[in-house]
C-alpha cells in the first residue's frame, strides 16, 4: 500500500514524506543495506518536488536511517538499532525500573565555545557553538551522578528551552528532534573529583569516582559527548556478551 502525501495536512510536505520513509525502514519494508528508490522515483511515487525529497532524505541521513554513497545511491543504514537496546537506556528509565525516588537538577543549560580538546571529542570545528548541559542526579536525596553533556548547537537549538528536569535528554533527542542514536562509545576509568565536583557529589576533593565518557552517534555523525562522574559505591556495571551463532 502506498501512503500518500496529504496536502491539506498542516504538516510540511517533507515532514510527511520523512515519516512515510521512516515507517518503511522501521517496519522492514526497506531492508537494511537495500537501496532506496532514486530521487526522481520518489518524486513520482509521492507527487512531490525534488526539494521535498532531498529535505526528507537529508533528514533521514542526518538521523542515521540512511547512508548516501557517492555515485551509487542511498541505502538503508546498517546501524539502525532496535528499540529498547540496553545501551541506550536513559537514567530516567533505569530509575523508574528500580522504583527509587529520584530527581534531576539542571545546573546549567547554556551555550559555549569548545575549549581544550572538546572539538576533537565532538569531532567539530573549533569555532562551532555548543550546547552545554550540566545535570546532577539525586536518588533518595543523595547526589549520585554529575553529568555534563555537549551537543553542537545547530543540531537542536531548541534544546535550550526544553525541560530536562522532567524529561530524558535521550528521549527528547529521539522523539522531538528525530535524532536517533545508533552508536555509543564508552570509556570508563577511575578519576579523582575536583573541588567543585566533590561539593556537588558530597565527596572530598580528590576522592576517586567512576568517570564515564560517552560519545553518541547518529549514523556516522557524532551528536553528543557526555562526561559523567558517578559515586562509585552507587553503581555497578553489567556487561553481557553473547556469541552469535
Amino acid at each position, binding site marked *: 500500500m502506498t501512503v500518500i502525501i496529504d496536502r491539506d495536512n498542516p504538516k510540511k510536505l517533507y515532514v510527511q514524506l520523512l515519516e512515510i520513509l521512516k515507517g518503511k525502514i522501521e517496519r522492514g519494508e526497506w531492508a537494511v543495506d537495500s537501496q532506496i528508490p532514486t530521487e526522481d522515483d520518489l518524486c513520482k511515487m509521492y507527487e512531490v518536488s525534488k526539494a521535498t525529497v532531498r529535505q526528507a532524505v537529508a533528514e533521514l541521513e542526518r538521523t542515521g536511517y540512511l547512508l548516501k554513497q557517492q555515485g551509487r545511491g542511498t541505502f538503508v543504514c546498517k546501524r539502525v538499532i532496535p528499540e529498547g537496546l540496553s545501551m541506550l537506556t536513559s537514567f530516567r528509565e533505569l530509575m523508574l525500573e528500580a522504583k527509587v525516588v529520584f530527581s534531576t537538577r539542571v545546573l546549567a543549560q*547554556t551555550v559555549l565555545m569548545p575549549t581544550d580538546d572538546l572539538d576533537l571529542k565532538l569531532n567539530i570545528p573549533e569555532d562551532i557553538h555548543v550546547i552545554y548541559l550540566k545535570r546532577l542526579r539525586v536518588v533518595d536525596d543523595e547526589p549520585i551522578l554529575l553529568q555534563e553533556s555537549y551537543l553542537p548547537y545547530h543540531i537542536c537549538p531548541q534544546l535550550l528551552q526544553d525541560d530536562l528536569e522532567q524529561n530524558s535528554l535521550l528521549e527528547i533527542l529521539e522523539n522531538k528532534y528525530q535524532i536517533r542514536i545508533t552508536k555509543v562509545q564508552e570509556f570508563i576509568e577511575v578519576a579523582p573529583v575536583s573541588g567543585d565536583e566533590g561539593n556537588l557529589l558530597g565527596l572530598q576533593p580528590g576522592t576517586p569516582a567512576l568517570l564515564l565518557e560517552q560519545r553518541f552517534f547518529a549514523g556516522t555523525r557524532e551528536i553528543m559527548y557526555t562526561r559523567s562522574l558517578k559515586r562509585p559505591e552507587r553503581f555497578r556495571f553489567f556487561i553481557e556478551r553473547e556469541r552469535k551463532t
Partner: protein
Amino acid sequence: MPDQEKQVREIMIDVFEFPHVPYWFTLRQVSGILKKSIHGGKCLRPAAALIFDEKYNLLGHLDIQDILQYIGNVTLSGEKARQDILASSDAETTHLLSELSEKPVSSFLHPSRLFADPEDLVSKAAELMLGNSLPILPVLENQKKLVGIVRSIEIFEYLSAAFFRA
C-alpha cells in the same frame, strides 16, 4: 536621517556571529577562543565574546581591548618602560600573568545593562550606544530573549548614509 527610519531588527546581526562563553571560563580560555576566531577569519569587529550564565542569560561582553588593558595593568605598571616590560620575562610578571589568566571572565566583563528591542528605531539604539560609549548593544525580544546584536559599525553605516545623500 533616512525618510523611513529602519527598525533595529533590520540592522542587527545574529548573536551566533560572536563567540559565546559562560562566566566561569578563565581569561586564558576566552583569549584562546578569541584568537581562534581571529585566525579563523570569522572574527567580527569588535573582537568580543558574549558572556552568559548557566541559564543562557546574557551577562555582558569582553573584547580584546579589555584583555589588553588587564594585561597592561600587570605588565606596564609602575615606572617601567613599555619596551622593557614587553621584552621582560621576570618571574614576578610571569607569576602575575599566570594568576590573571586563570581568573574567571566574570571578574572582567562589561555587564549588559542597556538593551534594544527589535522594534526600536535605529536612532534610539544609536542614542543609547553613543550616549553610553557602547561598542555593542544587545537586542532582546520581549525584554527576555536575546535575538541580535547591534554594533557601532551598523550604526555608522546607517547614519553615515546621510553624507552621501546630502
